[in-house]
C-alpha cells in the first residue's frame, strides 16, 4: 500500500509541476463552459415575429399585446391569409408566426377551449426552441392570470409546430455536452498521455523491472485524474447552475455518481489508448481524432442526431458521450432517477468494463 501511495504522490507531482497540464486541467473547463455558455446564450431579445389573427377579437388582441410587450418579440408583419405564412418565413426576417384560430374568444367562452398555433423556423434549431418556449410561456401566464379567475377553467391550447427541422429533440444544451467533452479530455487524453510519457522517457522500463505489478502502475497513474476530473465536473455543474441558470431538478448525488461512472469510462478508454500508442504524440492524436471529434460531432452535443445520415446515427449510438449527455439532461432538466436512465447507465457500465478488460489484457508486462 505504501508503494501505491508513493506512486500516486509522484503522479501528483508530475501534474502540479507541468504548467501546461495544469492549464488544460483547470483553465480549459472554465474557459470552455464560459465560451459555450455565452456563445450559445439562450437570452433572446427583439425577435421578429408575424401574427396571423383569424379572429381579431379582444382576447386575441390582449394576448398579442402581452407577447409584444414582453420585450422579447417585435412584430414584423400582420398576416391575413394562409399563403402569406410560407412567404413570410421564406423572406427570412421572421422567426415565428403566431396563428389564432377563428372565433377565438367565442370558442373560449363557449367550449372553454381555444387554440393558438405557433410556427417556428427551426433552421436555427436552438433559437426556434427558445422562441417557441417563450411564447408558450407568455400565453400560459396570461391564461393563469386572466382566465382562471372565473369559475370555469378556460384552456388555451398552444400547438407548437417546428418548421424546417421538425425533430428538435437533439438541440444541444451546452452544459451536458461540455461536461462530456471536458471529462473525456481530462480523463482519456491526460491519462493516455501520462502513461505513454513513461514509455517515452524510458521510466516504464525501470518501473517494469521493479516489484510493481501492472495493476498498481495503472491505478496509480489513473487515480489522480479521477480526482481532478471529478473536481472539474463539480466546477462545471456549479458554473452552469449559478452563472447560466441551468435547472437542477434531479438528485445531485445521483448526478455525481453518473458523472463518476463516465469519468471511469473515459479513464479506461485512456488506458486502452496508452496500451496501443508508442509515444505521447500518438496518444494525443488518437485521443483527438478518436475521442474529441466524435464526442463533439456525433454525441448530439452540437448536431441533432436525428438529422444525421443513417451511418452516422449508427456510429453515434456507440458513442459513450451520447448516453452521458442523455443522462445529464434527464437528471438536471427533468429530474429523472435511475428508472429513466438505467439503460444508458448500463451501457456506460458495460463499456467501461469492456475497455478495462481489453486494456488489462493488452498491457504489456514487458517492453514488447
Amino acid at each position, binding site marked *: 500500500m*505504501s*508503494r501505491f*501511495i*508513493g*506512486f500516486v*504522490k*509522484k503522479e501528483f*507531482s*508530475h501534474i502540479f*509541476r*507541468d504548467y501546461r497540464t495544469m492549464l488544460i486541467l483547470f483553465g480549459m473547463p472554465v474557459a470552455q463552459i464560459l465560451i459555450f455558455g455565452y456563445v450559445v446564450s439562450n437570452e433572446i431579445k427583439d425577435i421578429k415575429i408575424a401574427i396571423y389573427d383569424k379572429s381579431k377579437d379582444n382576447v386575441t388582441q390582449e394576448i398579442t399585446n402581452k407577447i409584444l410587450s414582453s420585450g422579447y418579440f417585435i412584430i414584423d408583419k400582420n398576416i391575413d391569409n394562409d399563403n402569406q405564412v410560407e412567404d413570410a418565413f421564406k423572406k427570412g426576417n421572421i422567426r415565428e408566426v403566431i396563428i389564432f384560430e377563428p372565433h377565438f374568444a367565442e370558442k373560449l367562452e363557449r367550449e372553454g377551449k381555444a387554440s393558438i398555433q405557433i410556427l417556428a423556423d427551426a433552421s436555427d434549431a436552438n433559437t426556434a426552441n427558445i422562441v417557441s418556449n417563450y411564447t408558450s410561456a407568455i400565453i400560459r401566464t396570461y391564461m393563469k392570470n386572466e382566465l382562471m379567475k372565473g369559475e370555469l377553467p378556460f384552456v388555451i391550447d398552444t400547438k407548437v409546430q417546428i418548421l424546417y427541422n421538425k425533430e428538435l429533440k437533439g438541440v444541444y444544451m451546452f452544459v451536458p455536452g461540455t461536461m462530456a467533452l471536458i471529462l473525456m479530455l481530462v480523463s482519456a487524453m491526460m491519462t493516455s498521455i501520462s502513461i505513454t510519457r513513461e514509455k517515452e*522517457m*524510458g*521510466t516504464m*522500463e*525501470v*518501473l*517494469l*523491472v*521493479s*516489484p*510493481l*505489478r501492472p495493476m498498481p502502475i495503472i491505478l496509480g497513474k489513473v487515480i489522480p485524474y479521477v480526482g481532478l476530473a471529478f473536481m472539474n465536473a463539480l466546477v462545471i455543474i456549479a458554473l452552469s447552475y449559478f452563472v447560466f441558470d441551468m435547472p437542477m431538478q434531479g438528485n445531485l448525488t445521483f448526478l455525481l455518481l453518473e458523472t463518476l461512472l463516465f469519468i471511469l469510462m473515459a479513464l479506461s478508454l485512456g488506458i486502452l489508448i496508452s496500451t496501443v500508442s508508442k509515444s505521447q504524440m500518438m496518444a494525443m492524436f488518437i485521443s483527438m481524432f478518436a475521442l474529441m471529434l466524435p464526442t463533439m460531432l456525433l454525441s448530439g452535443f452540437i448536431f441533432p442526431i436525428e438529422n444525421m445520415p443513417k451511418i452516422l446515427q449508427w456510429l453515434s449510438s456507440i458513442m459513450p458521450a451520447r448516453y452521458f449527455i442523455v443522462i445529464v439532461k434527464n437528471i438536471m432538466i427533468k429530474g429523472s432517477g435511475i428508472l429513466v436512465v438505467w439503460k444508458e447507465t448500463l451501457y456506460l457500465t458495460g463499456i467501461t468494463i469492456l475497455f478495462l478488460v481489453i486494456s488489462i489484457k493488452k498491457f504489456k*508486462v*514487458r*517492453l*514488447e
Partner: protein
Amino acid sequence: MNEIAVEAKGLKKTYEKVDAVKGVSFAIPKGELFGLIGPDGAGKTSIFRILTTLILPTEGKAEIFGNDVVKDYKKIRNNIGYMPQRFSLYQDLSVEENLNFFARVFGTSVQENYDLIKDIYIQIEPFKNRLAGKLSGGMKQKLALSCALIHSPDILILDEPTTGVDAVSRKEFWEMLIRLKQKGITIVVSTPYMDEANLCDRVALIQDGRIMKIDKPQNITNEFGRKLWAIKSENIYKLIQDLRQFEFIDTVYPFGEFIHITSKDNSMDINSLILLLKNNNHSKIEMLEVQPNIEDCFMELMNN
C-alpha cells in the same frame, strides 16, 4: 564464489528482420564484476533486456539466481537493480524525490539502505533539491545508480552506465562499482569503452550478436600471442596508408596518437622499418614494442 548468479544458454533474439543476438551462452558466478564489451549494435542491450525480463528471448534460456527470465520474471524483478542505457528517472522530480520514490516502489526506505548508497549519494546530496533533468551527465548516472541500489539488490545490471560521461566521472563511477562488488553484489555491466574492461573480473567480448571470447582481461591480453608495435610519425594519415602497403605487415590500427601494427611472421626489425619509412619521407618516427590491451585483442578476434 561457485554459486551461479546469471546463466545464459544459447540466447537468441531476432527483431523483425534483424538478428540482434545470435546464440550467446555464459555463466556469471555470484559476486563477480562481469563486463560485456563491444561496440554499439553488438547486441549488449538486447542481452540485458532479456536478463532483466523486459524482452523474451527468441531462443535459448537464461536464469538469474536459478529463476527463469521468462517463467519466474516476477521473482527476478524483486531482486534486481537495473540501470537502462538511457537516463530513465523522472526529470521533473528532484534528486531526493526520485530516490524516495524508487525506495517506496521497492517497499523500502532510503534510511534502511542508506549504508549501501551512502558513498554515491553523498556526492549528489548537495543537489538533492535540484530536478533530476537539470543534473550533469555524471551526476545523473550517480543518481540512477543510487536508485537502482536503493532496495539492496543481489545483482546489478548496468547498461552502458558510463557512455557520454566525462573521464573523471567515469573513473569515479568504476570505483563505486568496485566498492559495491566488495559488498558481495554481482554486477553485470556493459560498455563500449575497451579501457574499462581491465576493471572487470571477467569480460565477454561481443561483436555482431556473438560472444567472441569470455575470460579474465589479463588472460585475454596474454593470449594475444604476437608481438605488437606502436609507431608514430609526423604525418599519421600518410603513415597508415604507407604501412598498409608493406607486404610483411599484417594489421594496422590507429590507436590514440600511435598506430598499432603486427607483422605476418611475428618478427620485425625496428630499425629497418624506420629506415624504410624515412625513405618514404616520414620524419620524427617513434617506434616501440608494446603490450597488447583489450582493444588490440578485440580487433584481433574480430578479424579471425
